[in-house]
């Protein structure tokens, strides 16, 4: 095939996600945020719901999600995205409302808002990117930091005796009657990307059913914060994060698996 044939639209098999802007991503090379952004925007584009979608950005690495996602977005105070999304969904019940949050935002400072939005069964999607560390502020301990894991505020490793154990928010919210779909995914391999996209799509489709919250955790890496190369970080994630945060559906159609 000649080069000119390859670049013809009918031969194109991959292109930039239409709902992503042209702004250069602020994420570190190898970080999972970019893929999670892409998947979210692909799902919204494929469902044809962009005009009816309102996103809520957090505080943390993805605070600038609104620079990259070409949809209407409100940036929330640290941890408060589920409260912000609650109000938007309640006052615009026909819209697709989602939050995009990290682990510090969702599982530490925003624990109350997360639990109660889930408990009320708000008709929203929560996308929860868990990389076990505070990336934006430079690698501090997160509520999801693994036991023994080093960070700038646990320089000798997380001591669960004094610092507590990593919190499994996803398992926790799955216990609440207000959650309809709870799943844990990753985006570090092609196979996992396809699975994660399916999960995100299911979550957004659930909004039409008005049966409660859909909660999608994406276990991700933070090669900068973990002080590893991207490949090493992914390997470390598989070896250490996945045993503690096992991938797969936890609750489907309101039923625990």
């Amino acid at each position, binding site marked *: 095939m000649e080069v000119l044939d390859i670049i013809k639209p009918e031969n194109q098999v991959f292109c930039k996600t239409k709902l992503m802007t042209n702004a250069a991503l602020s994420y570190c090379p190898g970080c999972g945020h970019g893929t999670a952004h892409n998947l979210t925007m692909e799902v919204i584009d494929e469902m044809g719901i*962009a*005009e*009816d*979608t*309102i996103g*809520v*950005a957090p505080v943390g690495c993805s*605070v*600038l999600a*609104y620079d990259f996602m*070409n*949809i*209407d*977005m*409100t*940036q*929330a*105070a640290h941890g*408060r995205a589920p*409260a*912000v*999304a*609650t*109000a*938007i969904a*309640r*006052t*615009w019940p026909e*819209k697709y409302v989602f939050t995009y949050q990290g682990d510090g935002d969702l599982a530490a400072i925003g624990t*109350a*808002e997360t*639990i*109660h939005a889930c408990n009320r069964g708000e008709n929203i999607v929560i996308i929860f990117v868990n990389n076990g560390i505070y990336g934006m502020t430079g690698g501090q301990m997160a509520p999801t930091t693994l036991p023994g894991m080093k960070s700038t505020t646990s320089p000798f490793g997380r001591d669960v005796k004094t610092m507590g154990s990593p919190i499994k928010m996803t398992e926790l919210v799955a216990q609440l009657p207000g959650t309809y779909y709870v799943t844990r995914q990753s985006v570090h391999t092609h196979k996992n990307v396809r699975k994660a996209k399916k999960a995100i799509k299911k979550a957004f489709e659930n909004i039409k059913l008005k049966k409660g919250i859909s909660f999608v955790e994406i276990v991700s890496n933070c090669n900068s914060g973990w002080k590893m190369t991207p490949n090493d970080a992914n390997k470390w994630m598989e070896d250490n994060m996945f045993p503690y945060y096992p991938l797969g559906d936890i609750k489907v159609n309101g039923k625990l698996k």
Partner: protein
Amino acid sequence: MSELKLMKGNEALAEAAIRAGVDAYFGYPITPQTELIEYLMSQKTEERTGMVCLQAESEIAAINMVYGAASTGKKVFTSSSSPGVSLKQEGISYIAGAELPAVIVNVVRGGPGLGTIQPSQADYFQSVKGGGHGDYKLYVLAPSSVQEMSDFVEDAFDIAFKYNAPVLILSDGLIGQMMEKVELKPQQKRRTDAEVIAQCGSWATTGKTKDRERNIITSLDLQSEKMEARVHRLLKKYEQMEKEDLRFEKINCDDAEYLIVAYGSSARIAQKAVEIARSKGVKVGLLRPITLFPFPKKQLFDLADQVKGILSVELNAGQMVEDVKLSTEFKVPVEHFGRTGGIIHTPEEILEALEQKIINNGSIRHHKTRESSIL
């Protein structure tokens, strides 16, 4: 049709909000404002007007829900009392920074800390000097009657949407809890979603349509120049508020030799003190700031040329008195009189303070040797 009713201040405000076509309320119980959320819940607002009412898990969640609904152009408010309003300060700062229209009600109780559930005006500083972090101000309305608790709801939303800025209704446990006759305005229709989009679509996050760029609500400016531009934009609004939306009431000020400055519940009591003083031939006037920001600076500056002294009467340990001093530029003696947290001063106590601190220029001995001219 307007309607006359006997109501508590908190209930009158809640009913006025329903009638003003407000879209949503998010709150959390705390004395002495709890009747407000209770009344709204009793009214089945979703059925009456389609207004969303939700009891949040905390004051923090409630103010962030206000932020969320306001970011989509909806008319939304919250209410609380002093400790709860302290919790809301981060959210209020975000609302100011992101330039969103919203109304916050503070039915003030005594403090600091858990304080008392009794009425107080000790949140003056918090209300007019920022409260939360950063360079911002609130437009602050101070009702002094149940009627104003009702009337100020619509006024507050008018200002909030005129400037895309948060407005605070600064009440207190006295005005919130007392019952008075109130004339309620007729029911207004809530705006339809299409009307909200027509009014606020240029900035609100209502869903990006193909005919416009995406709307983003944020208060984040990583570039310092942009941050400064945002602050300057806010300052312009505050200047315009001072020019166009200052509100105050002058009572017996034309020939006054002495002036009392008081707002809200204190102004009610001070008005009685003025009547008593006048009946004894002492020319006392009352300046009642209705907005605490903007503050009647020029009016006070001018009155300072006319009167011999000014007493700032507040249910606190002395807060507004600082603004009275700044406004009058120390041209005349300015003193404070106030009780705190539930101890409500009487008109007679106000006059005694006026006589001791202002008329006799602080000389207690002098006061003891002469007949009281007022009491």
